[in-house]
C-alpha cells in the first residue's frame, strides 16, 4: 500500500505539468514559407533564419505573447538571381531594413486547438494589422503553432517601380508558418 503513495503524489502533479508554457523556439523543426503567383504560376519559397520570443500557455491564452523576427536576407526563392534581386531597394531593401517582424497583441481561442493571433506585421518600415488563424498541436514536451495568412505586398512597398504592377508578380503574398516551441522553465 505504502508503495502506491508516490504514484498518487505524481498524479496530483499532472494538472500542473499540463499547464506548460511554451517559450523556446526550435528553429530546426520550424518553418516559415511564402507563396505567391507569378503570371498565373504558383511559386513558393522560404526564410531560413528567423527567431521568436514566445510565451504561450494554452490555459491562459489572454496572457500569451509572441514576437517573430525574420532575417529577410535568408530568403530562398529557389533561384539565386531572384534571392539577390529581392534584397534590393525596390523589394525588401535589406541594407536599410534587414528584418521583418510580427508582434502579436492578442491570441484569441477559437475553440478546440484553434486560435487567432492578431498583431502588427512590420516590413520595410511599414506596419499593418493582420490576423492569423493558427492551430496549436501539443507533441510531448513541444508544441507546434501552424497557420497561414495573406498580405498585400503593395502595403509594404515590396516590389516598387516596374515591379509594382501585379500582372507579373501578384499582389497577394501568402505566409505559411509552422513554429515549434518547447516548454520553458
Amino acid at each position, binding site marked *: 500500500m505504502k508503495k502506491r503513495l508516490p504514484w498518487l503524489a505524481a498524479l496530483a502533479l499532472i494538472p500542473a505539468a499540463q499547464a506548460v508554457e511554451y517559450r523556446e523556439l526550435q528553429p530546426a523543426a520550424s518553418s516559415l514559407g511564402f507563396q505567391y503567383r*507569378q503570371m498565373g*504560376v504558383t511559386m513558393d519559397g522560404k526564410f531560413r533564419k528567423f527567431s521568436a520570443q514566445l510565451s504561450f500557455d494554452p490555459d491562459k491564452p489572454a496572457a500569451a505573447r509572441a514576437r517573430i523576427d525574420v532575417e529577410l536576407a535568408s530568403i530562398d526563392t529557389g533561384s539565386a538571381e531572384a534571392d539577390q*534581386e529581392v534584397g534590393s531597394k525596390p523589394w525588401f531593401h535589406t541594407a536599410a531594413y534587414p528584418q521583418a517582424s510580427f508582434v502579436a497583441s492578442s491570441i484569441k481561442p477559437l475553440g478546440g486547438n484553434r486560435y487567432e493571433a492578431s498583431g502588427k506585421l512590420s516590413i520595410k518600415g511599414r506596419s499593418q494589422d493582420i490576423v492569423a488563424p493558427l492551430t496549436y498541436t501539443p507533441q510531448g514536451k513541444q508544441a507546434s503553432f501552424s497557420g497561414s495568412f495573406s498580405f498585400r505586398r503593395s502595403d509594404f512597398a515590396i516590389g516598387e517601380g516596374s515591379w509594382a504592377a501585379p500582372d507579373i508578380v501578384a499582389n497577394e503574398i501568402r505566409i505559411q508558418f509552422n513554429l515549434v516551441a518547447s516548454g520553458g522553465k
Partner: protein
Amino acid sequence: MRPRYTRTAIVLHWILAPALFGLLALGFYMHDLPLSPEKLQLYAWHKWAGVSVFLLALFRLGWRWRHPAPPLPEQTPAMLRGVAHATHGLLYVLMLAIPLSGWLMSSAKGFQTVWFGVLPLPDLIGRNPALGQQLQSLHFSLNLLLLALLIGHIGAALKHHFIDRDDILRRMLPRF
C-alpha cells in the same frame, strides 16, 4: 501535275518556320537580360510558344505519317537523299526535344510551365538546381544544332530553287 506537299503540311511548315526563328532569337535575347518584369514576361511567352510549337510539331509529324512527303526527284544521288532524310528527321526530333528539354529545365529550376497562364503542365521532375543547369546546357546545345540544321535546310532549298532550278522549294510554297 508535279507532286506537292498537302495544303495542311504547307500551312504547318510556314507557321513553324517563323515560330522557330522567333523562339531562337527570343531565347538568346532574354537569357542575357537582367532580372526584370520584362524578363519574366518574355520567359513566360517563350515557354507558352514553346509548348505550342511542340504540339504543332507533334500534329505535323502525325499528319506526315498519314500523308507522306512527295518523293525526291529520281536523279537525286543516294548520298544527298540520305542527307535530306537525316536533316528532316533530325529537325522533327529537335522540334520535339527542344521544348521537352525546356519544360524539364523549367521544372528543375522551380518555375512551373503554365500554358498561356491557364493550363499548368505537370512538373515531371522536382526542383534541382544542378540538374536545371545541365538541362539549360542541353537546351542551349540542341538549339545551336537546330540553328545549324535550319541554315543548311534553307541553304539547300535556295540552292534547289535558284541553282538547280527544280521544284523542291516550290512544292512547299503556298499557291497564290
